[in-house]
């Protein structure tokens, strides 16, 4: 149920922003293991990649909007934001 509402949330609120991520989020339903060319990759690996992508994406967005100028300790901030995104994805999609 939780996973369904998670996907629903993405579809409703971020339809224009993140359609691809939302789509992948819905394909997450199922086993926490992803087949890629005949090998199964664990779910946490997907979460790590998502975290890295979110950190890079936020950096680009913040640079364009000027928020980046407000930040200090940028490396730690972006790493923390990426970690938060990865953990949120893990908790929502695969957590209890």
């Amino acid at each position, binding site marked *: 149920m939780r996973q369904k509402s998670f996907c629903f949330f993405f579809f409703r609120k971020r339809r224009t922003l993140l359609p691809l991520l939302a789509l992948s989020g819905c394909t997450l339903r199922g*086993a926490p293991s992803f087949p890629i060319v005949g090998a199964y990759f664990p779910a946490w690996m997907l979460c790590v990649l998502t975290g890295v992508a979110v950190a890079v994406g936020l950096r680009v967005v913040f640079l364009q909007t000027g928020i980046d100028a407000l930040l200090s300790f940028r490396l730690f901030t972006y790493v923390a934001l990426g970690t938060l995104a990865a953990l949120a994805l893990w*908790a929502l999609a695969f*957590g209890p």
Partner: protein
Amino acid sequence: MGGRSRIGILIALACIGAAILAGLSVAHWDDAYPSTDSATIDAELVHVASVVGGRLVDLPVRENQHVHKGDLLYRIDPEPYALTVHQAEANLALATAELANQRRLLAVRTAQAATARDQVTRAQTNRDLADRTVTRLEPLANRSYVPWQQYDQARVARNDAEISLAQARQQSAASEVAIGDLASATAAQAASQAALDRARYELRQTAVTAPTDGYVTSLHVKAGEVLAPSQVLFTLIADEAWYAVANLREITLPAVHPGDCATIYSMIDRRTPIQGRVESIGWGVLSADSAGPARTLPLVPRQMDWVHVAQRFPVRVHLQGAAPTLLRMGATATVEIRHGAACP
């Protein structure tokens, strides 16, 4: 500039703190609700064999066929076993006839023993008469009223009668012993009956039926093959109960209890959750540290390992209501204990 810097530091601290808290809570969940992607679908097996050997004459099942309990799987040439049954039946008839024969002979011997007893009585009477004759003649012979010759004959007759009585007694004793009983013939009949029962059992074992519902696998031969007794012809995967064997790390085992709900995905279709119940947790695995030759000194390698990888134990999860197409023995599976789509 100073204000902006303070805001930046505050944002950084908030983000890092939130990330640490999130990391701690996710780690806590992960321990409390274990899951693994290193599980396999498992079932029980029967290695199908017959306890008797012979030529395979009938094989109505094919590889991968589903069979029901009691279905005929294959048949071994029953002729030698039917012949053995006939032989055993003939042996039993022989033993039964012999028993009747012995019963008749017993009646004859019993009658002979009665005759011998009567002979003893007759010999005793004769001896008594001879004895009385001698007693009667003795005074007459002493006074020469009867010839001495007659008295002598009477004494010889008494001795004869004495010997006849002794012989009759011996013969009677011998015939009492000779009556015997039917124990030997009865035992021979029982032995023949047991041999016949065994032959019939072996004849029945030439037809092999399915001990359980299941799938025929590893069947590579056709009718005509000659099988030794107890030779396995193929393997039957029982489909009465299916399991997932999940290898969980020992540190997560306190969170796993028999009866816990589990969500299993067979990677044959990774979108269909299967509900399961934890049945049991393995009580032992072979460890490289404890494996050594039995009954001798422990083999302890010299080492200085600082990092020890957690041991994993097989957790047996009973699958409930899964589609048969998802269940193939050895298939990769993921198991989530007490969470996932099948455990609301």
